[in-house]
């Protein structure tokens, strides 16, 4: 694999909150157009890992590279100032569990805010692109609505469109469907599947096993802060290597069976 196709390189990242080691020595890479689903039990460090990638949490050890450029640390080895960090963050889109839309702005304004205010792109161009993105997620008619007036599924589709409006090199999803009513999960997954098909580079923390099985190019299984296992979804779901993964999948199969 050519080095130039590597979008994200996470190397030996560790993070502790007080006495609790949340991440220990996690390494993985993401190639261009890959969809990586990060799976694992609650509290296994999946969200923290995601938040370390765009430096919302500062890792205690390890390196993160986006398109070959170090995230968070300058060439001189010091922590980046806010301005430099902002620069990098605009290239990493993020979708949040609880949507995190800006409540004072309309849907269209939510999409345009960062491209216009942070990236300083021309307003007319951003607006055209934002309208196209709203059409893509099926929310053109909601462009002048405020987030509070939308359903959870609609909010999350706006959240995805907002992230895409920055033209990011990489999209991070932090349990994008966990806060949704079951009947609203589908509409969000449809949008994510389309993005995967179009070749968007994505890291998705999720509990949607069905989605991971048929949309992921690779699965990363985490347990107790460690990246325990990585592989193709076919291999992971049918023949997991580690006992931890086997137990996790069994418990999940049980849950799913119970729900049906």
């Amino acid at each position, binding site marked *: 694999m050519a080095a130039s196709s590597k979008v994200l390189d996470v190397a030996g990242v560790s993070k502790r909150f007080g006495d609790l080691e949340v991440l220990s020595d996690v390494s993985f890479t993401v190639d261009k157009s890959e969809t990586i689903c990060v799976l694992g039990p609650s509290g296994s460090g999946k969200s923290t890992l995601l938040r370390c990638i765009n430096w*919302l949490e500062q890792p205690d050890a390890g390196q993160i590279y986006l398109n070959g450029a170090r995230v968070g640390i300058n060439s001189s080895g010091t922590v980046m100032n806010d301005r430099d960090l902002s*620069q990098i*963050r605009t290239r990493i889109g993020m979708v949040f569990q609880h949507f995190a*839309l*800006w409540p004072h702005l309309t849907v269209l304004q939510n999409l345009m*805010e*960062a491209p216009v205010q942070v990236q300083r792109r021309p307003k007319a161009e951003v607006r055209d692109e934002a309208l196209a993105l709203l059409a893509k997620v099926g929310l053109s008619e909601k462009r002048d609505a*405020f987030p509070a007036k939308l359903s959870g599924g609609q909010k999350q589709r706006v959240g995805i469109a907002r992230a895409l409006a*920055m033209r990011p090199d990489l999209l991070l999803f932090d349990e994008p469907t966990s806060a949704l009513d079951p009947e609203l999960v589908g509409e969000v997954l449809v949008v994510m599947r389309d993005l995967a098909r179009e070749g968007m580079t994505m890291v998705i923390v999720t509990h949607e096993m069905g989605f991971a099985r048929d949309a992921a190019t690779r699965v990363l299984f985490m347990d107790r802060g460690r990246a325990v296992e990585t592989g193709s979804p076919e291999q992971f779901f049918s023949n997991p290597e580690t006992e931890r993964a086997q137990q996790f999948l069994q418990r999940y199969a049980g849950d799913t069976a119970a729900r049906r």
Partner: protein
Amino acid sequence: MIHDFGIVWSERALLLSGLANTAILSALSAVAALVLGCGLAPALMSKQPALLWTARFFVDGMRCVPFLLFAYIVYYGFPTFGVRLDNWTTGLAALSIYNAAYMAEILRGAWVAQPREPIEAGIAFGFSEIRLFRRIILPPLLLSAGPVIGNQMIQIIKDSAFLTIIALPELTHAASSIQSRHYVPFAAFITAVFLYWGLCLVIEAGVTSIGRLADARR
């Protein structure tokens, strides 16, 4: 009694100029206090101890001083430091500085109650420092704190009456002059009370329209 109000009516030019002074003074200091408060609020939320404690000291200090005393201190204190201002400017400065502390504390309270995720999204989308505060954090604060800010503006109007002690020709000063000139204290002061009430109604109307903006976003 009717006769007394007739006397007040004959002095309407004085009352109206007092009302105008009160209105302009209150409006200017409300804006100034809010702007200063917006500047102070991030300091009250700062992680840098020096900044945090300086802001905290100022805000708590102001809130513990009676405005009347503070107005005296500004009026007599500024000249000893070589700052010479006319009465009007002194009054404006005193009202603005004093209420800035309250505005900052109001905004801080609203900030603490805000959900964390939209602010975090702002950071993740590349907002930082002043831009983060101005574009992402502040607007929801102003909307949610609107009624309390309006309340503080009413307080500013009422505090401005104290400035009669530094001979600022505002509404209370005008009413006071009329009563001492004509011995009609009840008529003069009750008229002033109704005029203050009118000003407060204007603020109430403003709060209601901000409330409507906020409701659309809730």
